[in-house]
């Protein structure tokens, strides 16, 4: 093993060996790396596989999401970037540097190929999830930018407008996206920063969002968290353990029309501003009736405990849980994986905060679009919500050995 291949985790494990002579240190490093392996796997999420990581992965605590515009017209240049990104992403999820050399082992008169702020940190279950937006296939002038127009999946149809939307261009759209999730915010920011740096001249950042405090649990192993309204949310979320349901509701199938998307999924991202101050002046009883659950336990107002199935016709007709529940929407389910965000204060001194809603699904037309139409017109919660950003991405299947992000699209 050469020194440059050492992961941060392994370097940490071998820290005591640094003062020893060079050859002895190498031996010690290799031994401690081997010894540390089984224990270390806990904070590394495998990067390659049939599906991309960061979807059914138990939701991490932190998010850095970034949407890009592609600024090159050269398909080869774009493909080259995706290959480089994939290798960098794989390295970073293992806790290594973005480049092959790393932050401190390079030539002294060259800028390091990794920016270094994750040096010494755990891999923190970092996942990097890649998607492509509708505008990668065909731009606003109906131009086939990269010879991909024929491959645009029908499910990647631009989202319609919904009642009450106040979408801003600055928070919407994108040709590509990367969702970075980790249990340490610095690890997520490091990953995005390095991918952005590698992409200069080929892509540019269109918008980005930091998030914290996962608002959904995506696995039975996780407790249901609370959102900024103070309520448990996502109790009946699609979970990693429901394998049969995942094939029905989450993973795109080759028979759906776009063969290259088999094993992939579709991501809807919505930046939803919460009017926190007015919500806080609402009585506890009214808050619970708007949501449809009690605030203490998260139990449905129809009775029972948090995990008790709600009896929908015993909930207020405009309550959020009743309208959003699969039973009210023809059984359709999504895997929600959103995060809270706080972007400081607005010009009036009010908390600029809300939910950065992320939902993965097999077909947005029958899932998010159908549910959101209903919510947009009837949900009592709308009084306290404004949708300010919106984007839709096709999330390709996970890269197998030797493959790269989106390789099934470009072959």
């Amino acid at each position, binding site marked *: 093993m050469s*020194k440059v291949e050492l992961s941060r985790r392994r370097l940490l494990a071998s820290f005591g060996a640094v003062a020893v002579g060079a050859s002895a240190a190498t031996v010690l490093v290799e031994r401690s790396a081997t010894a540390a392996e089984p224990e270390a796997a806990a904070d590394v999420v495998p990067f390659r596989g049939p599906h991309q990581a960061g979807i059914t992965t138990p939701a991490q605590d932190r998010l850095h999401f970034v949407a890009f515009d592609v*600024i090159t017209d050269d398909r080869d240049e774009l493909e080259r970037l995706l290959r480089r990104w994939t290798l960098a992403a794989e390295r970073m999820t293992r806790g290594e540097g973005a480049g092959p050399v790393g932050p*401190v*082992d*390079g*030539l*002294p*008169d*060259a*800028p390091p190929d990794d920016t270094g702020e994750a040096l010494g940190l755990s891999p923190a279950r970092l996942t990097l999830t890649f998607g492509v937006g509708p505008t990668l296939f065909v731009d606003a002038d109906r131009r086939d930018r990269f010879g991909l127009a024929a491959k645009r999946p029908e499910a990647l149809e631009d989202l319609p407008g919904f009642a009450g939307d106040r979408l801003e261009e600055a928070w919407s759209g994108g040709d590509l996206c990367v969702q970075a999730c980790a249990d340490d915010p610095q690890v997520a920011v490091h990953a995005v920063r390095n991918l952005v*740096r590698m992409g*200069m*001249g*080929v892509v*540019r950042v269109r918008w980005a969002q930091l998030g914290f405090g996962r608002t959904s649990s995506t696995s039975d192993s996780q407790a249901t968290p609370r959102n900024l309204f103070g309520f448990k949310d996502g109790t009946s979320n699609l979970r990693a353990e429901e394998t049969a349901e995942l094939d029905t509701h989450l993973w795109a199938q080759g028979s759906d029309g776009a063969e290259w998307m088999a094993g992939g999924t579709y991501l809807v991202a919505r930046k939803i501003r919460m009017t926190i101050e007015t919500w806080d002046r609402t009585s506890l009883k009214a808050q619970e009736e708007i949501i449809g659950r009690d605030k203490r336990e998260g139990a449905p107002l129809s009775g029972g405990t948090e995990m008790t199935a709600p009896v929908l016709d015993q909930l207020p007709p405009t309550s959020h849980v009743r309208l959003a529940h699969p039973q009210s929407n023809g059984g359709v389910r999504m895997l929600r994986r959103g995060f809270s965000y706080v972007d400081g204060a607005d010009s009036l001194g009010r908390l600029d905060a809300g939910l950065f809603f992320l939902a993965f699904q097999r077909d947005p037309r029958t899932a998010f679009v159908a549910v959101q139409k209903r919510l947009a017109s009837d949900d009592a919660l709308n009084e306290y919500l404004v949708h300010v950003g919106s984007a839709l991405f096709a999330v390709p299947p996970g890269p197998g050995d030797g493959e790269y992000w989106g390789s099934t699209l470009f072959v």
Partner: protein
Amino acid sequence: MLRPARALALPAVLLAAALGASACTSADSTATGARVGVTAGDGTCELTATSVPAGVVTFAVQNTGSQVAEFYVYAADGTTILSEVENVGPGVTRELVVELAAGKAKTTCRPSDGVDGISTDITVTASGATSAAAKPSLAQAVEDYRAFVADETAALLAGTQEFVAAVKDGDIAQAKALYPQVRTHWERIEPVVESFADLDYSLDAREDGVEPGTEWTGWHRLEKALWVDKSLDGTTAIADQLLADTQDLVSRIPSIELSPSLIGNGATALMEEVATGKVTGEEERYSRTDLWDFQANVDGARAAYDALAPALKDADPELATTLESRFASLQERLDALHKGDGFVLYDDLTTAQVRDLADAVDALAEPLSTLTATVVNG
């Protein structure tokens, strides 16, 4: 004008020029040159050697005093800073790597909040150490870039004479017309002229960079008179000093020891200037002629690149192709903003145009930052 720390740090690019391709960690690479221990205490500054062979020299600066310390290495003239290390806390040891040419050098230990330092003269003996400039293509690069600097210096002096004459004649229209044109020659060689920190300050300080108790002089003082005050009353002395300082600058420039590293990192520094000062419209806040400076910085980076291009094409032809296409794409955007003999004013740019320029700058600056290491070690 660069922020002060950056301006002073720039000549440090002389370091590592002779490290060779085997350099891979700082510990290994520093072992290839001379090493001098420096003990900086309260009122003391001791060096383990005052004579070193030419080439890469590592100064290990240990602060045994009670105050935060700084350590400087100056060229033979005793005023041009070759490299420096700041913020060495009590008990801390920091390393400074610099390439010294045969002749003389000077070092100074100084407490961070003090003015007077303790200086030591160093003798640099000729050595067999091979310099990066020994490669024929790099030696030619240094000659080409030296010729570029000489041309720009001559044009800067001639233009300054004309500009100063217009100011002293009270010809506001003529002075305003000359201002962005003459500054082009300054901006093209900015990393070189800025290695003289005193002249950079007296010639190119912006109003908010003026230290309390000193008079604001130089280009931007006259820029404000021309565009904001719309009066040249009382500026004769400022104009005279502008010319005297420029003449001083011109006389000092031949003493600069150009190296491939200095040229390559100068290109990077110019693009940093564009990214932080020009694309944001901070440089020419009164005249709004930022795009003249923008173009001049790009010209300077391009000249540095052109000088190093033959060596780069040997070392990494793919990087050369990338840089040429990124230079071309940035130039295309600037060409679209021409108006008359010059450019549109910064205030006339739309947000989308500024963003487009910023993207093209990033696209060039990121790969350009690897130019030096590629040609010096390639």
